[in-house]
Protein backbone atom coordinates (compact mmCIF):
# COMPACT_ATOMS: atom_id res chain seq x y z
CA UNK A 1 0.00 0.00 0.00
CA UNK A 2 1.24 3.40 -0.99
CA UNK A 3 0.44 5.19 2.24
CA UNK A 4 1.99 2.59 4.47
CA UNK A 5 4.04 5.37 6.03
CA UNK A 6 0.88 6.23 7.98
CA UNK A 7 -0.22 2.94 9.56
CA UNK A 8 -3.30 2.65 11.74
CA UNK A 9 -1.24 1.91 14.83
CA UNK A 10 1.14 4.82 14.31
CA UNK A 11 0.97 7.93 16.49
CA UNK A 12 -1.12 10.91 15.45
CA UNK A 13 1.03 13.42 13.62
CA UNK A 14 0.63 16.91 12.22
CA UNK A 15 -0.84 15.68 8.93
CA UNK A 16 -3.52 13.75 10.84
CA UNK A 17 -4.41 16.79 12.90
CA UNK A 18 -4.59 18.89 9.72
CA UNK A 19 -7.01 16.37 8.17
CA UNK A 20 -9.17 16.41 11.32
CA UNK A 21 -9.13 20.23 11.18
CA UNK A 22 -10.35 20.04 7.57
CA UNK A 23 -13.09 17.58 8.51
CA UNK A 24 -14.21 19.88 11.31
CA UNK A 25 -14.18 22.94 9.04
CA UNK A 26 -16.13 21.12 6.34
CA UNK A 27 -18.89 19.93 8.69
CA UNK A 28 -19.03 23.28 10.46
CA UNK A 29 -19.91 24.83 7.11
CA UNK A 30 -22.07 22.07 5.69
CA UNK A 31 -24.11 21.25 8.80
CA UNK A 32 -23.85 24.01 11.41
CA UNK A 33 -25.80 23.87 14.63
CA UNK A 34 -29.11 25.83 14.37
CA UNK A 35 -28.41 29.32 15.71
CA UNK A 36 -31.01 29.37 18.49
CA UNK A 37 -30.37 25.89 19.86
CA UNK A 38 -28.28 26.78 22.95
CA UNK A 39 -30.94 29.33 23.99
CA UNK A 40 -33.72 26.74 23.63
CA UNK A 41 -31.73 24.26 25.69
CA UNK A 42 -31.09 26.84 28.43
CA UNK A 43 -34.81 27.64 28.47
CA UNK A 44 -35.62 23.95 28.95
CA UNK A 45 -33.01 23.59 31.70
CA UNK A 46 -34.40 26.59 33.60
CA UNK A 47 -37.87 25.04 33.49
CA UNK A 48 -36.71 21.59 34.43
CA UNK A 49 -37.59 19.97 37.71
CA UNK A 50 -35.57 16.88 38.51
CA UNK A 51 -38.69 15.06 39.68
CA UNK A 52 -40.42 15.39 36.32
CA UNK A 53 -40.79 12.63 33.80
CA UNK A 54 -39.36 13.76 30.47
CA UNK A 55 -41.25 13.02 27.28
CA UNK A 56 -39.38 12.42 24.04
CA UNK A 57 -40.31 13.70 20.62
CA UNK A 58 -41.59 10.78 18.57
CA UNK A 59 -42.96 12.42 15.46
CA UNK A 60 -43.13 15.92 14.03
CA UNK A 61 -44.94 16.22 10.73
CA UNK A 62 -43.09 19.43 9.91
CA UNK A 63 -40.36 16.94 8.96
CA UNK A 64 -42.54 15.99 6.00
CA UNK A 65 -42.27 17.92 2.76
CA UNK A 66 -44.91 20.65 2.44
CA UNK A 67 -46.48 18.83 -0.48
CA UNK A 68 -47.31 15.89 1.78
CA UNK A 69 -48.63 18.08 4.56
CA UNK A 70 -50.81 20.15 2.28
CA UNK A 71 -51.17 23.90 2.31
CA UNK A 72 -52.79 24.33 5.72
CA UNK A 73 -50.61 25.88 8.36
CA UNK A 74 -50.94 23.15 10.95
CA UNK A 75 -48.29 21.00 12.49
CA UNK A 76 -48.76 17.83 14.50
CA UNK A 77 -46.23 16.65 17.07
CA UNK A 78 -46.23 13.50 19.19
CA UNK A 79 -44.34 13.04 22.46
CA UNK A 80 -43.91 9.84 24.39
CA UNK A 81 -42.94 9.20 28.00
CA UNK A 82 -43.01 6.12 30.21
CA UNK A 83 -46.57 6.79 31.35
CA UNK A 84 -48.12 9.01 28.69
CA UNK A 85 -48.35 9.82 24.99
CA UNK A 86 -49.07 13.47 24.16
CA UNK A 87 -50.14 14.57 20.71
CA UNK A 88 -50.58 18.24 19.84
CA UNK A 89 -51.75 20.09 16.75
CA UNK A 90 -50.56 23.65 16.30
CA UNK A 91 -52.38 26.16 14.12
CA UNK A 92 -51.61 29.82 13.53
CA UNK A 93 -54.11 32.43 14.68
CA UNK A 94 -54.61 35.60 12.64
CA UNK A 95 -53.06 37.76 15.36
CA UNK A 96 -49.70 35.96 15.35
CA UNK A 97 -50.41 33.70 18.30
CA UNK A 98 -51.00 29.98 17.87
CA UNK A 99 -53.80 27.62 18.87
CA UNK A 100 -52.75 24.30 20.38
CA UNK A 101 -55.13 21.32 20.53
CA UNK A 102 -53.92 18.26 22.38
CA UNK A 103 -54.78 14.70 23.28
CA UNK A 104 -53.44 12.50 26.05
CA UNK A 105 -53.21 8.73 25.85
CA UNK A 106 -54.30 6.99 27.98
CA UNK A 107 -57.11 9.58 28.17
CA UNK A 108 -57.68 11.15 31.57
CA UNK A 109 -58.32 14.43 33.37
CA UNK A 110 -55.05 16.19 34.12
CA UNK A 111 -54.02 19.76 34.78
CA UNK A 112 -51.87 21.02 31.93
CA UNK A 113 -49.53 23.98 31.69
CA UNK A 114 -48.06 25.69 28.67
CA UNK A 115 -44.90 27.46 29.82
CA UNK A 116 -43.70 30.24 27.54
CA UNK A 117 -40.93 32.77 27.98
CA UNK A 118 -43.42 35.39 29.19
CA UNK A 119 -46.14 33.49 31.04
CA UNK A 120 -47.50 30.11 32.04
CA UNK A 121 -50.95 29.24 30.66
CA UNK A 122 -53.26 26.78 32.39
CA UNK A 123 -55.68 24.24 30.95
CA UNK A 124 -57.10 20.84 31.84
CA UNK A 125 -57.86 17.76 29.81
CA UNK A 126 -61.33 16.23 29.79
CA UNK A 127 -62.09 12.55 30.35
CA UNK A 128 -61.33 11.91 26.69
CA UNK A 129 -57.87 13.35 27.28
CA UNK A 130 -58.56 16.43 25.13
CA UNK A 131 -57.25 19.87 25.97
CA UNK A 132 -56.77 23.18 24.18
CA UNK A 133 -54.91 26.46 24.46
CA UNK A 134 -56.71 28.97 22.27
CA UNK A 135 -53.99 31.60 22.18
CA UNK A 136 -50.32 30.93 22.90
CA UNK A 137 -47.62 33.49 22.11
CA UNK A 138 -45.29 32.23 19.40
CA UNK A 139 -41.74 31.40 20.45
CA UNK A 140 -40.25 28.85 22.83
CA UNK A 141 -42.76 26.87 24.87
CA UNK A 142 -42.92 23.74 26.93
CA UNK A 143 -45.88 21.58 27.84
CA UNK A 144 -46.27 20.15 31.35
CA UNK A 145 -48.88 17.53 32.21
CA UNK A 146 -49.32 17.73 35.97
CA UNK A 147 -49.18 14.61 38.12
CA UNK A 148 -52.44 12.75 38.64
CA UNK A 149 -52.53 12.71 42.43
CA UNK A 150 -56.22 11.99 42.44
CA UNK A 151 -55.51 8.50 41.15
CA UNK A 152 -53.88 6.32 43.79
CA UNK A 153 -51.29 4.10 42.23
CA UNK A 154 -51.35 6.22 39.06
CA UNK A 155 -48.37 8.04 37.69
CA UNK A 156 -47.05 10.27 40.44
CA UNK A 157 -44.86 12.50 38.37
CA UNK A 158 -45.47 15.41 36.08
CA UNK A 159 -44.56 14.86 32.44
CA UNK A 160 -42.67 17.61 30.60
CA UNK A 161 -41.97 17.88 26.89
CA UNK A 162 -38.80 19.31 25.39
CA UNK A 163 -38.99 23.01 24.62
CA UNK A 164 -40.34 23.58 21.15
CA UNK A 165 -40.75 26.58 18.94
CA UNK A 166 -44.38 27.46 18.29
Amino acid at each position, binding site marked *: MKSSDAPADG*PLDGADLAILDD*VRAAFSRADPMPAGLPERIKFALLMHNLEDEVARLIEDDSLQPAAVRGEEQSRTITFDSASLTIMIRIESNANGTVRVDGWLAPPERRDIEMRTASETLQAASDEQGRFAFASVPSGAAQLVVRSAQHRPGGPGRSVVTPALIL
Partner: protein
Amino acid sequence: MTELSPVSVSSGQPDRTARIASMLTAAREGSEDALGDIVTELTPMLWQVARATGLSTPEAEDVLQTVWTRLLSHLDAIRDARALIPWLVVTTRRESWRQRAAGRRQLPADGSWFAALPDASPGSEEEIINADQRRALWAAFGQLSPRCQELLRIVAFVPRPDYQAVAAELGMPRGSVGPTRGRCLAKLRALLADSSDGSPR
Protein backbone atom coordinates in the same frame (compact mmCIF):
# COMPACT_ATOMS: atom_id res chain seq x y z
CA MET B 1 -16.16 36.78 33.27
CA THR B 2 -14.44 37.05 29.93
CA GLU B 3 -16.43 37.10 26.76
CA LEU B 4 -17.02 33.71 25.18
CA SER B 5 -15.53 33.43 21.75
CA PRO B 6 -18.03 32.11 19.19
CA VAL B 7 -17.09 28.56 19.98
CA SER B 8 -14.11 27.63 17.97
CA VAL B 9 -14.16 23.99 18.92
CA SER B 10 -10.58 23.95 17.88
CA SER B 11 -7.43 22.30 19.00
CA GLY B 12 -6.08 22.21 22.49
CA GLN B 13 -6.36 25.53 24.18
CA PRO B 14 -5.32 24.85 27.78
CA ASP B 15 -7.17 27.95 28.96
CA ARG B 16 -10.36 26.58 27.43
CA THR B 17 -10.05 23.42 29.51
CA ALA B 18 -9.49 25.52 32.62
CA ARG B 19 -12.41 27.76 31.72
CA ILE B 20 -14.77 24.80 31.33
CA ALA B 21 -13.52 23.39 34.64
CA SER B 22 -14.35 26.61 36.48
CA MET B 23 -17.77 26.80 34.76
CA LEU B 24 -18.46 23.24 35.92
CA THR B 25 -17.52 24.07 39.50
CA ALA B 26 -19.80 27.12 39.48
CA ALA B 27 -22.62 25.11 37.86
CA ARG B 28 -22.37 22.47 40.57
CA GLU B 29 -22.71 25.23 43.14
CA GLY B 30 -25.98 26.19 41.50
CA SER B 31 -25.00 28.93 39.07
CA GLU B 32 -27.49 28.89 36.19
CA ASP B 33 -25.30 31.31 34.25
CA ALA B 34 -22.33 28.95 34.45
CA LEU B 35 -24.47 26.05 33.30
CA GLY B 36 -25.71 28.21 30.43
CA ASP B 37 -22.12 29.03 29.49
CA ILE B 38 -21.28 25.32 29.33
CA VAL B 39 -24.31 24.77 27.09
CA THR B 40 -23.21 27.59 24.79
CA GLU B 41 -19.66 26.27 24.68
CA LEU B 42 -20.28 22.58 24.04
CA THR B 43 -23.58 22.30 22.17
CA PRO B 44 -21.99 22.93 18.73
CA MET B 45 -19.77 19.88 19.30
CA LEU B 46 -22.67 17.74 20.52
CA TRP B 47 -24.74 18.82 17.51
CA GLN B 48 -22.14 17.15 15.27
CA VAL B 49 -22.16 14.01 17.43
CA ALA B 50 -25.95 13.71 17.15
CA ARG B 51 -26.07 14.48 13.43
CA ALA B 52 -23.23 12.04 12.74
CA THR B 53 -25.61 9.21 13.66
CA GLY B 54 -27.95 10.32 10.86
CA LEU B 55 -30.66 12.03 12.94
CA SER B 56 -32.87 14.67 11.37
CA THR B 57 -32.52 18.26 12.58
CA PRO B 58 -35.54 18.19 14.96
CA GLU B 59 -34.53 14.80 16.30
CA ALA B 60 -31.01 16.01 16.98
CA GLU B 61 -32.37 19.10 18.78
CA ASP B 62 -34.58 16.90 20.92
CA VAL B 63 -31.76 14.51 21.77
CA LEU B 64 -29.53 17.37 22.86
CA GLN B 65 -32.22 18.72 25.18
CA THR B 66 -32.51 15.26 26.70
CA VAL B 67 -28.74 15.00 27.16
CA TRP B 68 -28.38 18.39 28.86
CA THR B 69 -31.37 17.67 31.07
CA ARG B 70 -29.74 14.43 32.11
CA LEU B 71 -26.51 16.26 32.90
CA LEU B 72 -28.44 18.19 35.58
CA SER B 73 -28.88 15.02 37.60
CA HIS B 74 -25.29 13.93 36.93
CA LEU B 75 -23.55 17.18 37.82
CA ASP B 76 -22.44 15.91 41.20
CA ALA B 77 -21.24 12.61 39.77
CA ILE B 78 -18.88 14.39 37.36
CA ARG B 79 -16.26 15.38 39.92
CA ASP B 80 -13.46 15.83 37.42
CA ALA B 81 -13.90 18.41 34.68
CA ARG B 82 -11.95 16.14 32.35
CA ALA B 83 -14.82 13.67 32.55
CA LEU B 84 -17.40 16.20 31.35
CA ILE B 85 -16.77 16.14 27.60
CA PRO B 86 -16.39 12.35 27.35
CA TRP B 87 -19.61 11.93 29.34
CA LEU B 88 -21.50 14.39 27.12
CA VAL B 89 -20.20 12.85 23.87
CA VAL B 90 -20.95 9.28 24.88
CA THR B 91 -24.39 10.15 26.29
CA THR B 92 -25.29 12.11 23.15
CA ARG B 93 -24.22 9.26 20.93
CA ARG B 94 -26.17 6.68 22.95
CA GLU B 95 -29.33 8.84 23.02
CA SER B 96 -28.99 9.52 19.29
CA TRP B 97 -28.84 5.84 18.43
CA ARG B 98 -31.78 5.19 20.75
CA GLN B 99 -33.74 7.91 18.95
CA ARG B 100 -32.79 6.49 15.57
CA ALA B 101 -33.97 3.05 16.62
CA ALA B 102 -37.28 4.55 17.86
CA GLY B 103 -37.87 6.59 14.71
CA ARG B 104 -39.99 4.94 12.09
CA ARG B 105 -38.09 6.53 9.26
CA GLN B 106 -35.20 4.44 8.03
CA LEU B 107 -32.08 6.29 7.05
CA PRO B 108 -29.76 4.79 4.51
CA ALA B 109 -27.21 2.76 6.42
CA ASP B 110 -24.62 3.08 3.69
CA GLY B 111 -23.68 6.64 4.50
CA SER B 112 -25.26 8.04 1.35
CA TRP B 113 -26.97 10.74 3.46
CA PHE B 114 -23.53 12.24 3.51
CA ALA B 115 -23.71 13.04 -0.20
CA ALA B 116 -26.71 15.25 0.48
CA LEU B 117 -24.73 17.68 2.61
CA PRO B 118 -24.56 21.03 0.87
CA ASP B 119 -21.27 22.38 -0.31
CA ALA B 120 -20.39 25.92 0.67
CA SER B 121 -21.21 28.53 -1.93
CA PRO B 122 -18.24 29.54 -4.05
CA GLY B 123 -16.69 32.93 -3.46
CA SER B 124 -13.24 34.38 -4.01
CA GLU B 125 -10.43 32.63 -5.86
CA GLU B 126 -9.07 31.45 -2.56
CA GLU B 127 -12.48 30.06 -1.76
CA ILE B 128 -12.51 28.13 -5.03
CA ILE B 129 -9.23 26.44 -4.15
CA ASN B 130 -10.65 25.63 -0.78
CA ALA B 131 -13.75 24.32 -2.50
CA ASP B 132 -11.59 21.95 -4.56
CA GLN B 133 -9.89 20.71 -1.44
CA ARG B 134 -13.24 20.34 0.24
CA ARG B 135 -14.61 18.34 -2.68
CA ALA B 136 -11.60 16.03 -2.50
CA LEU B 137 -12.18 15.64 1.23
CA TRP B 138 -15.92 14.99 0.74
CA ALA B 139 -15.15 12.43 -1.96
CA ALA B 140 -12.61 10.60 0.20
CA PHE B 141 -14.76 10.85 3.33
CA GLY B 142 -17.74 9.43 1.46
CA GLN B 143 -15.78 6.28 0.63
CA LEU B 144 -15.26 5.46 4.30
CA SER B 145 -17.52 2.99 6.08
CA PRO B 146 -20.50 4.55 7.91
CA ARG B 147 -18.85 3.72 11.23
CA CYS B 148 -15.60 5.43 10.23
CA GLN B 149 -17.52 8.48 8.99
CA GLU B 150 -19.32 8.75 12.31
CA LEU B 151 -16.21 8.27 14.45
CA LEU B 152 -14.07 10.73 12.49
CA ARG B 153 -16.78 13.37 12.45
CA ILE B 154 -17.08 13.09 16.24
CA VAL B 155 -13.35 13.03 16.88
CA ALA B 156 -12.79 16.05 14.64
CA PHE B 157 -14.93 18.16 17.00
CA VAL B 158 -13.51 16.89 20.26
CA PRO B 159 -11.01 19.29 21.84
CA ARG B 160 -7.50 17.87 21.61
CA PRO B 161 -6.97 17.47 25.37
CA ASP B 162 -10.10 15.27 25.50
CA TYR B 163 -9.31 13.30 22.37
CA GLN B 164 -7.80 10.31 24.12
CA ALA B 165 -10.58 9.89 26.69
CA VAL B 166 -13.30 10.20 24.04
CA ALA B 167 -11.54 7.88 21.60
CA ALA B 168 -11.25 5.26 24.34
CA GLU B 169 -14.96 5.60 25.20
CA LEU B 170 -15.89 5.17 21.54
CA GLY B 171 -13.87 1.98 21.33
CA MET B 172 -11.21 3.35 19.03
CA PRO B 173 -7.85 1.61 19.24
CA ARG B 174 -5.29 3.34 21.39
CA GLY B 175 -1.57 2.78 21.71
CA SER B 176 0.27 2.51 24.97
CA VAL B 177 1.59 6.04 24.61
CA GLY B 178 -0.93 8.60 23.44
CA PRO B 179 -3.67 8.18 20.89
CA THR B 180 -2.89 6.36 17.69
CA ARG B 181 -4.08 7.33 14.26
CA GLY B 182 -6.53 4.46 14.07
CA ARG B 183 -7.88 2.52 11.15
CA CYS B 184 -10.40 5.14 10.04
CA LEU B 185 -7.98 8.05 9.90
CA ALA B 186 -5.31 5.89 8.21
CA LYS B 187 -7.87 4.98 5.55
CA LEU B 188 -8.97 8.58 5.00
CA ARG B 189 -5.34 9.67 4.76
CA ALA B 190 -4.61 7.01 2.16
CA LEU B 191 -7.68 8.00 0.11
CA LEU B 192 -6.64 11.66 0.19
CA ALA B 193 -3.07 10.77 -0.79
CA ASP B 194 -4.39 8.74 -3.74
CA SER B 195 -6.64 11.56 -4.92
CA SER B 196 -3.90 14.19 -4.74
CA ASP B 197 -1.64 11.90 -6.81
CA GLY B 198 -4.22 12.27 -9.54
CA SER B 199 -4.38 8.51 -9.90
CA PRO B 200 -8.05 7.65 -10.12
CA ARG B 201 -7.00 4.04 -9.37
